[in-house]
């Protein structure tokens, strides 16, 4: 079977699901962030596949912007995690329960 759009989109969907599973499963904020990156990457793959099979390049340009925004997001997110660690001395999600009850 030749590889067409379906295979690429299937890989993209599976990767997104794996990232989602990781976000729900992990307790460490840093690893949750890594799984978020996986989900963003899954979107990138889908966009590039669509753009390739459509023939234009708007999808590729969009991926370029997504990569830029993801880099900025990681920088800010990690700064927030560091600030959180200074205040609470932990990065484990179950211990960050100030809003519970």
């Amino acid at each position, binding site marked *: *079977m*030749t*590889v*067409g*759009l*379906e295979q*690429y*989109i*299937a*890989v993209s969907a*599976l*990767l*997104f*699901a*794996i*990232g*989602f*599973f*990781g976000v*729900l*499963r*992990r*307790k*460490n904020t*840093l*690893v949750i*962030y*890594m*799984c978020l*990156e*996986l989900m963003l*990457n899954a979107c*990138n*793959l889908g966009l*590039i596949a669509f753009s*390739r*099979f459509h*023939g*234009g*390049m708007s999808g*590729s*340009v969009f*991926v*370029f*912007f997504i*990569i*830029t*925004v*993801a*880099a*900025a997001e*990681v*920088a*800010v997110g990690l*700064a*927030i*995690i*560091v*600030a959180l660690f200074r205040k609470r001395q932990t*990065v484990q999600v179950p211990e960050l329960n100030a809003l519970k009850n």
Partner: protein
Amino acid sequence: MTDIFFYIFAALTLGSALCVTLAKSPVNAAMFLITTFIGMASLFVLLEAYFLAVIQILVYAGAVVVLFLFIIMLLDVGEEKRVRTKLVTWIASFVGLALLIVGVVGITSSDNIQTQAEALPEAAGATLKNFGYELFTTYQLPMQVTGFLLLIAMIGVIVLSKRVKTD
């Protein structure tokens, strides 16, 4: 030949992505993240998006993972205790996957979309020249906004990581 490469790189990407979610130590997770990004960049090459493949390696494998490792080192995060995955996590994941599959099938079974590799148009986004042209003509405003976004992110990081004076 391209098909074999596709399956190899797809397996590499998905396998190491699964390892990211399952690895006990955060450092191992970051290492598997690098492998995932490399597999992803290879898939981009197969889709003839060479510029984006290079950007993927530079920005993600180069900058983002190094930043992650730096923060892991700074916070001295140890190995995670063994946690049982809750049932609700499994259910939510599989429901999410099922919805995604419905979406994929819905999209690919549409008649309006060219899905086969035969009679594929020439890749327009392959060259760096095209990219630059598009970014500075059609996508001029988003380009400027992204620049401002990066500036704001930089200022935000500086403000966040400054120690608050308590007096």
